[in-house]
């Protein structure tokens, strides 16, 4: 196993949260909860696992990310801005007229965004097609697919998972963001989806569950997926919707969240304190 630089990954995750907050504050509100829950997995993906080139975002043999829960765009944009795919200042153009950073991910607008998503469920099949395409081209590239737990209410998700297993797409890694909440409240109240590990195993995936807000656990689980084989991988991310900013995490209805100047100052101060502790 490669050495895991936990501090570096945790710092990156904090920086992703900071950029996300910047973007959403610039507009006053946005999809904050579900962006924060995936900040740690984005940090490990882009900070350690994925081969990408900010100078050549369209490089065909890169690893690809499909953020099928497209409303988490702000977290993806912050990740890309931190890596230099786009200027950091551009984060403040989120959802402004003519922006390259729309609410939902758009591969034709943002350098580094590999697929357009937003209508929930559709990213799953797109990712399966991308992974299949890479395999047919003979690339060693992998496709990482972030799916929301609420999103998995959509039937297309399970069509895509059946397909991925049938075609033995071991270059596809599904990261299910089990943050237990969706727009109308707790997923168990809206539409309970049962045991994800059992479900994915039954669908033919190599499945593990990790603390999805713990970069070390994420790094280990992702490293395991490098080994190939004949099954697609699923990692169930046990996360907190709003993770990293306690006041947001404690608000049940945090899918869309207002970030006024006061909240922005307080939340940013909290994140800066986290960064200070990590980086000294």
């Amino acid at each position, binding site marked *: 196993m490669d050495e895991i630089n936990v501090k570096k990954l945790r710092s990156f995750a904090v920086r992703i949260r900071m950029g996300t907050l910047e973007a959403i504050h610039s507009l006053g509100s946005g999809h904050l909860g579900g962006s924060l829950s995936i900040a740690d997995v984005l940090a490990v993906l882009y900070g350690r696992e994925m081969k990408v080139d900010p100078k050549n975002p369209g490089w*065909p043999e890169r690893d690809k990310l499909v953020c099928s829960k497209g409303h988490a765009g702000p977290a993806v944009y912050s990740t890309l801005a931190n890596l230099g795919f786009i200027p950091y200042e551009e984060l403040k153009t989120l959802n402004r007229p003519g922006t390259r950073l729309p609410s939902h991910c758009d591969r*034709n607008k943002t350098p580094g965004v590999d697929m357009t998503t937003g209508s929930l469920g559709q990213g799953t099949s797109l990712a399966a*097609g991308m992974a299949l395409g890479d395999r047919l081209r003979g690339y060693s590239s992998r496709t990482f697919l972030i799916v929301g737990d609420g999103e998995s209410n959509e039937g297309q998700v399970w*069509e895509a998972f059946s397909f991925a297993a049938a075609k033995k797409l071991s270059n596809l890694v599904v990261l299910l963001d089990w943050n237990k909440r969706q727009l109308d409240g707790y997923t168990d109240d809206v539409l309970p989806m049962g045991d994800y590990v059992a479900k994915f195993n039954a669908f033919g995936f190599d499945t593990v569950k990790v603390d999805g807000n713990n970069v070390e656990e994420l790094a280990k689980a992702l490293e395991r997926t490098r080994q190939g084989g004949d099954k697609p991988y699923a990692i169930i991310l046990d996360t907190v919707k709003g993770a990293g900013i306690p006041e947001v995490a404690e608000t049940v209805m945090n899918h869309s969240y207002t970030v006024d100047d006061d909240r922005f100052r307080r939340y940013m101060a909290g994140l800066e304190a986290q960064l200070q502790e990590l980086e000294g």
Partner: protein
Amino acid sequence: MMKIEYTGAMDPRLCKAVLGETIPKLAEADPDVIYLDADLMNCIGTAKWAAAHPDRAINCGIAEANMVGVACGLASAGFKPIVHTFGPFASRRCYDQLFLSGGYARNSITVIGTDPGVTATMNGGTHMPFEDVALYRAIPGSTVIDATDPNMLESVLRQCVDRPGVKYIRVGRKQYATVYAPGSETPIGKAVTLREGSDAVIFAAGIMVHEAMQAAQALEAEGISAAVVDLFTIKPLDAEAVVSWAQKTGAVVVAENHNRNGGLYDAVTQVLSEECPVPCRCVAVEDEFGEVGPQGYLQKRFGLTAEHIAQQTCAVLERKK
């Protein structure tokens, strides 16, 4: 080369045989062409070739939304997917996927929807799309084709492979009357004048082209000179040809195997209302659902016949006076 060869006789080649031969041919000529189906390979004769070429033909099972998404994912990697299933499942069953994963995300795919409208015959109302053209027309940048005969089908399918956007070809699997000679090229977006005429023009697509030709012959016997124009490309419509024929004749009939809402009649009258308002009449399904039966019965049931076209031509000529 394009040669019109209409005699009213049925073409010896079935359209499903054309699909069964042409899809493998296109895949063999271009390594980026990839074919996806939703458990209907045996319906168009591709199953045997597909089994021998598992990297070029992907059976997605009965999961059309996923099939379209996978095709779009492949398109994003530079592949040129050709997707097939029956018309209703190739349109309304996976419409959000066609619209967003395809059109909006700029992933170019070719979709073949077999057995449109009354050509769904014994599969009945559940399988009988009278709305597929309307749905595809509403996708920005799309191409929508109602194939006229097996020879045209081969030509348009070949052209679609490298054409950007979401492309939809609707075609019945069974016999069509020959309209074009084998090997004819029918450029997408160009109307074809099949018959000259001066009193009225009949714009038709798909199986209705044959009916329109029969109608024009019958009208000629009554001293009415009706032109017949094949508008197989419903989008982008050949507006120039539509306006020019409307100006020349001053009376228009549109014939289509589709609901009158959202199909060829809407496309034609949209152009004419702005550019050349003339009396128009429509031969189409009058906002009804499909039902089961042989094609001949269904054409009569829904008024998709040469007789009805002739009647509507006489009606529009009354208005013209």
